[in-house]
């Protein structure tokens, strides 16, 4: 596409309108998810260059335990909790506002067995025996904090940085900043472990105020990977091709008198890309050629781990195929939410993800992918030391654990800490905004400079509040 620019853009808007002789070029580059960096490098709007430093990670796999996994029973060991079990929260602790109002309920003991693991001696409970074998690869952040006390606000916050909707998801920011490496696949893919609806629905992976180009695309774990990917029933590939050819012919006659409108051309490309995606996406997710050994590494041979194992394997496949950001939901529909009977509920869920996650880490490592792939584990918040309904725990957004592995993050360490009962983050408190900023940092993006201009405001993922965790 030839392009003559006459003026320097004075705003992003103008750039969008002018670059490549009209909006269409941007529509097209956005469509192909070329990184803004690249289009800036081509000499068009240098003022839009997104500053980068040397990235440590290229891709992200975000393992989202939806509903709020208990840090107190998994990765944040609190011996004092069992000593004080049955008593009320000591007076020295500030009473939190909790979703169910359990500030004054007795403390609930942790029934897990804890061990120090690996060379590093990380404390990990017996609910994550398999993941524990990778202790020396994990950076366990014990001082996470979020602003959402309920699931809606919490999940939205963990995804977009805000408790209410309307902002782009982390995956959207990443694909906005880095683009995709395979234009026949979406840059941001989401896979759930069941038909359950993730709290707030599809907007969790929405692009908010950004163009829909950056929104996450939901893949199904089995069957047709993307909605509407298959031709309608009874329509053969041949018939689909003929249709597209007719469409192309009609469009090009129409467009021939309007060659200045490059957006029209972008639309034609859109249909062609869709057609190619129809061919490519099923291949990317076809697990039939994976060996038995691989399948069992992920726990696909056992009923309780089969689903999440398959999703973890799909995640690896998608990353290999150039997808930038994969988000896997475990317990879609707040199933990690254990207000009562936490032993049983968490026990089952931990079992369903432990082996698959360990398998994913081993597999990525064996293939040399772990270095460039940042794996993140966590939920929208943790759970309280106080009990609820006798044997459950309430939401705790004031202090909880997430961990990272790969992506150049040194493992075998803990970062930050909660108080002695795991209620509040006390050391190196890492708010969701900081977490997001740090993730972008690992991907080579400066969160203060990855800006999207919306309604006159230079918007950042962290709403101008985040700081990169230096220790990462």
């Amino acid at each position, binding site marked *: 596409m030839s392009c003559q620019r006459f003026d320097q853009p004075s705003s992003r*808007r103008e750039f969008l*309108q*002018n670059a490549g*002789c*009209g909006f269409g070029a941007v*529509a097209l580059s956005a*469509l192909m998810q070329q990184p803004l960096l690249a289009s800036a490098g081509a000499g068009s709007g240098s003022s839009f260059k997104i500053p980068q430093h040397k990235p440590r990670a290229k891709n992200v796999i975000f393992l989202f335990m939806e509903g709020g996994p208990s840090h107190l029973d998994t990765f944040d060991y609190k011996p004092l909790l069992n000593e004080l079990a049955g008593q009320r929260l000591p007076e020295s602790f500030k009473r939190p*506002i*909790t*979703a*169910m*109002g359990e500030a004054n309920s007795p403390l609930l003991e942790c029934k897990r067995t804890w061990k120090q693991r690996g060379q590093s001696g990380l404390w990990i409970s017996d609910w994550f025996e398999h993941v524990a074998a990778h202790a020396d690869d994990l950076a366990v952040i014990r001082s996470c904090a979020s602003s959402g*006390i*309920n699931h*809606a*606000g919490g999940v939205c916050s963990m995804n977009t940085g805000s408790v*209410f*909707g309307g902002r782009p998801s982390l995956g959207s920011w990443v694909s906005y900043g880095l683009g995709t490496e395979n234009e026949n696949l*979406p840059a941001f893919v989401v896979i759930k472990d069941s*038909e359950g609806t993730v*709290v*707030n*629905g599809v*907007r969790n992976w*929405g692009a908010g*105020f950004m*163009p*829909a180009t950056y929104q996450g*695309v939901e893949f199904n774990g089995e069957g047709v990977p*993307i*909605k*509407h990917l*298959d*031709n*309608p029933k009874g329509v053969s590939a041949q*018939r*689909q091709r*003929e*249709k597209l050819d*007719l*469409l192309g012919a*009609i*469009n090009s*006659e*129409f467009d021939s*008198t*309007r060659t*200045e*409108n490059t*957006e029209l051309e*972008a*639309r034609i490309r*859109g*249909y062609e*890309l*869709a057609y190619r*995606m*129809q061919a490519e996406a099923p291949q990317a997710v076809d697990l039939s050629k994976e060996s038995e050994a691989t399948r069992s590494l992920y726990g696909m041979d056992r009923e309780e781990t089969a689903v999440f194992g398959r999703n973890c394997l799909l995640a690896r496949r998608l990353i290999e195929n150039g997808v930038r950001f994969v988000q896997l939901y475990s317990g879609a529909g707040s199933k990690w939410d254990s207000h009562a009977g936490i032993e049983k509920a968490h026990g089952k869920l931990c079992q369903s993800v432990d082996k698959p996650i360990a398998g994913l880490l081993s597999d990525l490592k064996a293939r040399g992918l772990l270095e460039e792939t940042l794996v993140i584990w966590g939920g929208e918040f943790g759970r309280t030391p106080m009990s609820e309904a006798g044997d459950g725990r309430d939401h705790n957004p004031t202090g909880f654990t997430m961990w990272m592995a790969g992506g150049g993050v040194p493992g075998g360490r803990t970062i930050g800490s909660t108080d002695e009962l795991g209620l509040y983050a006390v050391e190196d408190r890492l708010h969701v905004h900081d977490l997001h900023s740090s993730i972008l940092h690992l991907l080579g993006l400066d969160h203060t400079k990855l800006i999207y201009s919306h309604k*006159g*405001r230079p918007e950042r993922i962290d709403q101008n509040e985040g700081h990169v965790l230096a220790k990462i």
Partner: protein
Amino acid sequence: MKTLAPFLLLLVSAVPHYGAGEDAGRAASTFFENEVRPILANRCFECHGEKKQKGGLRVDQLAFLKTGGDTGPALVPGKPEESPLIEAVRYGKQDFQMPPKEKLPEKEVAVLEKWVKLGAPWPESNASKVVMMEGGFTPEQRNFWCFQPLSNPLPPKAQGEWALTNIDRFVAAKHAELGFKPSRRADTHELLRRLTFDLHGLPPTEAQLQAFAGEQSPASYERFVDELLASPRYGERWAQHWIDLVRYAESDGYNADEYRPAVWPYRDWVIESLNADKPYDRFVREQLAGDEIEPGNPNVLIATSYLRNPIYEWNQVDVRSQWDIILTDITDTTGELFLGLSFGCARCHNHKFDPILQKDYFRLRAFFAPVQWRDDLKLATDSEKEEHARKQAEWEAATADVRAKLDALLEPMIGKSVARATRRFNDEFQVMMRKEEVERDPLERQLSNLCMRQLTRARRTFDPVKSLKSDADKARYAELSEELKKHEHLKPGPLMEAFVATDVGPQAPPTRFKTRKGEQEVAPGFLTLLEPGDPAIPPVGNSTGRRTALANWITRPDNQLSTRVIVNRVWQYHFGRGLVATSSDFGKLGEPPSHPELLDWLARRFVADGWSLKKLHKAILMSATYQQTSRTSADDPALKSDPGNKYLWRFSPRRLDAEQVRDAMLFTSGELDFTAGGPAVDGNLLRRSVYTIKKRNSQNELLRSLDAPAGFSSTSERQSTTTPTQALFLLNGDWPLNRARKVASRVKSVDEAWNAVLGRPPTAGERSNAAAFLDKRLAGSGWREPSPVERSSEAGAFHEKTEHERLLANNAPKEGDDFTVEAVLRLDSVDAAAGVRTIASRWSGGKDSIEAFGWSLGVTGEKSRFKPRNLIMQLVGEDENSNIGFEIVASNLRIVPGHRHHVVAVVSCSERCVRFSVRDLDDPSEEIQKAEVPHAIRSKLGAGVSGLTLGGLGKRTTNQLWDGLIEALRVVPGDIAEADVSADFRAWKAGPVQWIATAGEGAGWEWNGDGKGAEGGDAFRQAMNDICQVLLNSNEFLYLH
């Protein structure tokens, strides 16, 4: 509290503040340059300099220090003890220490103290002198274009013949200045299409195309514009723009995303206001303060629904934060929407680029501080309310005794459930809730209102049947309910709930905002830059009058912001780009107007024309500027120097927006249902898009894929994206495919297809392309002339893969939670797997949202866990916990294939059971079989969006289709009297929904076949389907030129 600098008039001169003699001046200068400036530069500039201004403060010039930052002046010359700068560097207070990381050495602190004591001498060169004015605004800020009063420009004289109206004269002047030439007038076909999409959101009708074909005269164009503006379709289209701006939606938006059943009257109010050309000032005033202006008029009160649009979380126990979020949302939206300023930026600090003080943000917010969301008001006139109250009193009198008994039975348990809900709140709110309303201060009333809504919900969702334990109590409850029901005829129907807001009372809660130095309290007020004083606001009735005052200010004829903002928005929706391209941000980060004089001229004219939007539309539409063609050649120099068409040298082509695409597809397929107003319907049905359900968390798939906003925040400009997933949906999705098939079913030839979709015959090239496509398809298929669709000889036959798969009852009234289905039918086969042969349904098969609620009566298949041939009723509704409940209620009565049966199913949610009866009409010896089966669905069967369907589900699902005959069927609310139940359907009394096969479809009934089945093997039909689908996906269809 510190006085803020804004009210000082500060004129800083370059003359040092102390000393008379030149020597003294020099000494001061040396002291400053050698000792003071290095400290400031080394220690402070990084965060408080040209690049960054933490806390809104700069310290690289004296004027900035004296004006200060968010917390007021940082320095008072000569008075170190009163200078926060000194306080901060001394590290005296724990939360007010600078620099934040480490205290300065004592020596440096002493230098700064001495400097301030000396009067803070700061010798400056004239070049860097900054003149600060009132409020700390610079002349540059003060002179910024959007704050200037409206000018009164005269249309310039135009050369040549092109200009038709005054608008054109302004545009032509710019053309002349920049050396552009305007484009020629678009052809009639293009103009008709442009006008109808622009004003109605629809393609032109055949009649319009015919009436105006070839007409080039200005008079006929004008006539057409007038006609379109007078049509009710106009309001439906333009309401969509307003709905985007006010982030209207029909659900709460948080996880539960609860449906807002009473919000639609606001949407209708917008449509009706636009159609009636309600003056814009009135339109604004009603939305901001309708409750204060005409509290007794439901048609005005409903406008305050504007204040209810924020998202809301029904179970949020932190009500204080929730209320804060709600007020923030209203304030931000109001600032953008009416004033075109990004007020939101000034919530945490003075605006970085525009002269909006943090205090101004809270002055604006203070207008809304007294707002109370009301759940107790009705949309009814006084006389309707009186009538209702009278009947209600009668009913109450008649039922006093039985209700007292019910209360005695239930109230203790309801009390417990409410108490549980109460305990979720922390002590502070529990104390608040225990107070009498009169003891609560205004803020407590607002917060406890939010708490109480949750308690009311607990009461509303209490389920007696589940909660009563003993059989005796249960029996007693049943008996009392029965007794209560006897008086049902006395009970008046409910009045429409008013989803509105008023003030909490004549007294407002304080509006405070936090700065680093503590809290400040502010009174309502406008932009300090324009109106520094606090306006006097007289209370209105039981209301503070604040919002009326705000509305009056916004709608002042000389308000330079609001008048420009609205005319610019109208311009933007006509041209795709505003004269100010950033229509919700007129500030410094937005764009300056391309034609400032034209903008002011339009604004003045608009006010002079009585704030009439229709007159404004007409003035724009009659201009030559609007009527230009979009065509240009790729080598047009204007395309290179102004590719964005900022200077209007042609018409900018643009993709249709989501609602235009959906409505145009339905219009083209001949299915568009023009019913106006009322509750919203599912987007998969056939109403106009503006009437489809707008749930924030689950948007309609088509609309979402074409960039319709979800309604979380005000949207002034839609995105227009092109993504592969969008293409996949348009190519392979059921909904678009079905529209294409419908179009194809209406056309017999390629020419007709072109006319139907694009409103014109194909060109020679297109005709030959389509012919080649058809030839290829038909070659070898053995296809001959299509024969008319074969109709089954049997009336009322339903079979898969025919044109008679299902029968849709369009617009059938809802039967409610207690109803009866009676039918005479014959089943020809059962499903070989676990599919259900559906007799009738109001359900699409979903189980996970309120839209999916409904029911379905059918017969089980071979592999069913309920055994084959079982007559079952499937129910999806709310259970006693207000959770979504799905239940298969199996009668265990069997249907014999091949035999005629008389079937009755009486569904009762109030009694939580279904009573079935089945009689085999072909076996006279067979007795009537009966069954009564309990279930747990409590309510809302009718809340879903599926229409009543015979022979299948609302959404075509092949393993749920009836196979056989439905000779007659009726659905009646409530129970049918025993005596009226009859297999002889000719004796049925005409009811709301009644199907008699031999009487034919009649109005309201519509057969639905399988498009695929219909095309089955018919290569011609298949090819025509494809051609129509291609046309619906073509650029010509999807773009406006």
